[in-house]
């Protein structure tokens, strides 16, 4: 038998300096978070202050008017339209990215070739967007101009879609890999075919993760300016007698181009237009993300998570 332990409050009291490194680390990470919030907040406040006059005095006019040489009339309707169309085209190509992820994760054998493809996809996600612009110029503007109509919103949407694709493939692949093995085994054990397992169990379970990827993808698609510049987003256009489909193959612009164009004009008063267009872009990204988050929450709830 060993001696009876004597316990006093002092033995249990925290000793000073016990966790000094931990405290330092806590202060560091807290200030890092604070700094990040401060930066984002400062930029946000600065933009909103600059945009204030336009947002309060002629918000609907600003949203509903095309760009103009007249400060009092110029708006971003064409940019909103272009950005939404680009986002829509990007969304239409999401199944391709999700399909590629399903193939790579579920069907492809683990060979050097499939590993090479995986590594390549990861590297593509880090390629500067201007490179996708050049690719889009060569493939969608010049090569497929019969389909896209040349420097059009379709070409821009496809170029941005290709840019977003690696992000979609990677996040969808990670979501598929995170689906627990027991779920798959349970379905296989009941005599489901591979496709039935993927369709009824794996994809629904991976959907929330896949949606997270699509949110990132759409946000990136809406914010990209470099590829649009190369594809040829214009500063001003009119549509003449073109119908909707001809317009899709005609001149276009997008919100990032509106912002860039406003920022380049001489008069100080145009700064407010650039800031207001930035606010519109931010809100558009926010709205689309909100929709995705709501859809994600509903699916998660339905899956009982």
């Amino acid at each position, binding site marked *: 038998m060993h001696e009876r332990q004597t316990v006093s409050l002092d033995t249990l009291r925290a000793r000073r300096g016990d966790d000094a490194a931990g405290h330092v680390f806590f202060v560091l990470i807290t200030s890092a978070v604070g700094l990040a919030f401060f930066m984002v907040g400062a930029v946000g406040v600065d933009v909103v202050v600059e945009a204030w006059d336009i947002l309060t005095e002629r918000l609907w006019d600003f949203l509903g008017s095309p760009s103009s040489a007249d400060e009092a009339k110029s708006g971003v309707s064409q940019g909103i339209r272009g950005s*939404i169309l680009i986002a*829509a085209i990007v*969304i239409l190509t999401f199944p391709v990215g999700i399909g590629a992820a399903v193939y790579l994760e579920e069907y492809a054998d683990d060979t050097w070739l499939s590993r090479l493809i995986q590594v390549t996809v990861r590297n593509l996600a880090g390629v500067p967007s201007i490179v996708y612009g050049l690719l889009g110029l060569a493939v969608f503007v010049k090569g497929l101009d019969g389909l896209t109509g040349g420097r059009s919103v379709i070409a821009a949407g496809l170029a941005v879609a290709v840019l977003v694709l690696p992000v979609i493939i990677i996040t969808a692949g990670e979501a598929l890999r995170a689906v627990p093995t027991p779920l798959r085994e349970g379905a296989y054990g009941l005599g489901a075919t591979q496709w039935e397992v993927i369709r009824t169990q794996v994809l629904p379970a991976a959907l929330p993760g896949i949606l997270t990827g699509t949110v990132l993808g759409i946000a990136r698609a809406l914010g990209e300016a470099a590829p649009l510049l190369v594809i040829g987003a214009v*500063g001003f256009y009119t*549509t*003449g007698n073109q119908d*909707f489909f001809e317009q899709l193959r005609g001149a276009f612009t997008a919100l990032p181009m509106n912002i860039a164009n406003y920022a380049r004009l001489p008069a100080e008063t145009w700064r407010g237009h650039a800031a207001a267009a930035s606010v519109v872009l931010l809100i558009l990204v926010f709205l689309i993300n909100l929709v995705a988050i709501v859809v994600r929450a509903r*699916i998660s709830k339905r899956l009982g998570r």
Partner: protein
Amino acid sequence: MQELLPPSRSDRLRSVGLVIALLGLFALISGLVDRDDKVTVAAQQQSAASMNDVDRSTGPIEGEFLVSGSSTVYPIVLEQAEVFSQANPGVAISVEGPGSGDGAQKFCDGEVPIANASRLYKAEEIEICDANGIEYIELRRGIDGITVITSPANDLVDCVSFNDLYALISEEASGFDRWANANALTSVWGGREFPDVALDVYGPGEESGTFDSFAEIVIEGVAKGKTGLDTDARDFVTSIRPDYTSSPDDNVILQGIGASDYSIGWVGFAFAKEAEAAGAAKLLQVAKQDGGACVSPTEETIASAAFPIARYLYTYINADAAANDSAVIAFVDYMMSEEGLQAVSSAGYIDLAEPDQRRAQSIWANRVTGPAWE
């Protein structure tokens, strides 16, 4: 029991429905925005109709074209295209301003029928046009002064000569971070002595016509002996120092100028005038030669060529389009009309002198192709 059970097929249908609804929402929003464009245009159409003097006797004009080229000329064309399209709703016209060089590339590839430039096309650009069988009509549009600016806080310098600018901004001035460093050069030709204060240089990047024009007029001017220096006794460079802060965005340049007390930089007159009015920049007087008359940049001095750093703005028209494309013809007609030309001054640039103006109009009227201006 049946009603307790949510059949999974209807769940699936609901998801599909949600996606379709979302896409429909996109289409709806873009449709609404699209209609807004037309409403705006239609509403302004009536008032605009009276302002335009394009011959419309042949009925409504239809067509589609893109105007590319200089970002300096962009505001002029933007205003002209806007007014023109209000009177000609059947024409789909678009305007971009990627730069004189980019515009030349698209123009000489035959991709755009109209391209603007803040300089004449270079020999190698003309060669591409020739190789592609593109004939062009070269129109002078207006004048842009290149203004040398500093911070409003700078009370040590009011006027600079070309030689001073060479000593501060040419490649020979690489590494100079104080105004007094330039004295090593000015002392060579017996020029002025600068005070010993920090030197920060801001200007447009190489892709800009303003960069080219400044190098050509000022630095090359000095190197070619146009300011009276002995170019036989000494080799002068023709290029700009690589170690200055460059930006394609003139407003970024102006911000840099305002941020340091003894900055120096150069931007187009339209931008400088706006910045001066806002108290963000001080426009320096410029003398071509040391000891020559110091001239302030104003509309008058630039138009009369008394201010020594000025450049002409040009528009290139594809000769084939000028003969066959009714929409392009109508637009250039408007562009060169008295009313259309007002856009030059309202965009902040300087109108051509009367003889030049008439000559440009006659070149267009007669569809004269090839180099027309010096």
